């Protein structure tokens, strides 16, 4: 997100259109005659967004954002969040939480003994979790995906 904020972009390289399993380049011996490619000894795998965004596949889920309560944190209506359930939630993390049976995305904070869920938008006051409320952290948000 920092890159976008400062207005500069950095070209990283091509990404594959279709990601199916891990692709291992094996084309060295494809052309029996002719000149060997000077790049043959320097083959890299194409950049893989899946690999970039996901570190624990079994524990990672995608969810869709509805509403603008987190717009201040760069999370917009319609965005896809990459949620890693294997990460331990800490204060300051943006999390998907269950509050009274509903899924919500907010920043997890704490005041004394009380957990709070803070929106990143002026229109939404922070929610203090009352002891009688059913509350648990569903997963920690590890990334945002948005197509323009």
């Amino acid at each position, binding site marked *: 997100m920092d890159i976008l904020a400062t207005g500069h972009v950095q070209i990283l390289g091509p990404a594959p259109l279709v990601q199916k399993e891990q692709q291992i380049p094996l084309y060295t011996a494809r052309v029996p005659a002719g000149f060997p490619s000077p790049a043959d000894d320097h083959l890299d795998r194409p950049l893989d967004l899946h690999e970039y965004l996901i570190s624990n596949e*079994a*524990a990672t*889920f995608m969810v869709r*954002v509805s509403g603008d309560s987190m717009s201040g944190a760069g999370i917009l209506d319609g965005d896809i969040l990459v949620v890693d359930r294997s990460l331990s939630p800490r204060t300051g993390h943006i999390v998907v939480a269950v509050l009274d049976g509903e*899924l*919500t995305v907010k920043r997890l904070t704490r005041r004394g003994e009380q957990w709070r869920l803070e929106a990143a938008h002026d229109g939404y006051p922070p929610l203090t979790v009352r002891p009688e409320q059913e509350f648990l952290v569903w997963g920690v948000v590890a990334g945002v995906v948005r197509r323009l």
Partner: protein
Amino acid sequence: MSSTQTFFPSNAPRGMVYALVDCNNFYVSCERVFAPRLQGRPVVVLSNNDGCIIARSEEAKTLGIAMGEPFHKREPFLRREGVNVFSSNYPLYGDMSARVMEALSRFTPHQEIYSIDECFLGFVPAPDADLLCTARHIRETVRQWTGIPVSVGLAPTKTLAKIANRCAKKDPASKNVCLLGDTTTIKQTLARTDVEDIWGIGRRYARFLHTRGVDTGLDLVRMPRDWVRNHLTVVGLQTVLELDRQPCFVLETTPAPAKSIVCSRSFGRRIRDKQALGEALARHIQRAAERLRAKGLLAHTVRVALETNRFQPGPQYAARRCQTLFHPTDATPALHKAAQGLLDILYRSGFAYQKIGVTLLELVPHNHRQASLFPPAAAETGRQRDLMRTVDHLNTVYGRDTVTWAASGLGPQQWHMRQNHVSPRYTTAWDELPCVG
């Protein structure tokens, strides 16, 4: 005890500890992960076509809802009691199962995926306290990563691990973890276990055993081995040895190659018309051929089965027939042609059909095509291959049935499966992701 040694398999790994990890009310738990409001409420999941109740939450069990009850009979009761009803959502359950199995694979290299919601793990022997600690860690990890609660049963054999898992599920004090280690605990547990609930005994043998006064696992272990072998076959004897802490069943870590591929499904409502049957059959062939190609196999024989609903009044008919192909193939058109030929032979007018199914048999690996006196033209096979590969690719990338065969029918199909209560494919479809506010 005389024949014990004879049947003891020499290659059985001695001294391994087996864990059976079983997901609690798996289908219900999958639904709850993405709809947390269902926590603590009664939930049931129905079989294909919304036929029977095949999964129940604890709350639903408490209401007296039994496994396998027909949905239509229970519908008014379920509505009255406010039970949440779901059609089965196999794309979701399959994905969640893969996640659970992946999480479990982190704990040991010895893993046998036994079913969609059960997995055997093998561990080197360790003190009881350490084993229990590992089991709790497994439970917590799977719960955190996937949201699915599991029960873990530990024991020196797979059959005992199954029983340990049952205890872990039934006894609230166990907190879903149970170890059957020492002889005394095993004996006490077997004395409380009905023979019917022992893995590998089955209802028929259990009935027979009850007539002979063999009611519990402990009764069974105390029977002479010769008697067991004579009445329950060698598999029964192995089961008894396993109850006696002698491992006979090893972990099957590599799945056996598929022997057949089956695509079969009941219709949403009865079908009389041959064309509609043909369309359903074409759809089944399409799915079966996709799976065949994904496994890199060729089929030599096609079988079609057709049946009416024997639980409904009216004239009944059921028939099946095979055709062996000249060359083994994985091409949809060739398989389709054979299947339609079989349907022509099998079809009788005047019946209300409930189900049509196709089975691909005599599967051989694609690269092991047998030398033939009359091999199919190489160019033709190559083009066929390219076409199939392209179709499969498009359907993988752009979604199921992007490219389909006109024979499967276009537009809404009257034979489609009934799925009135299906939840979104939360984990496998971009436009069905769970929403967070």
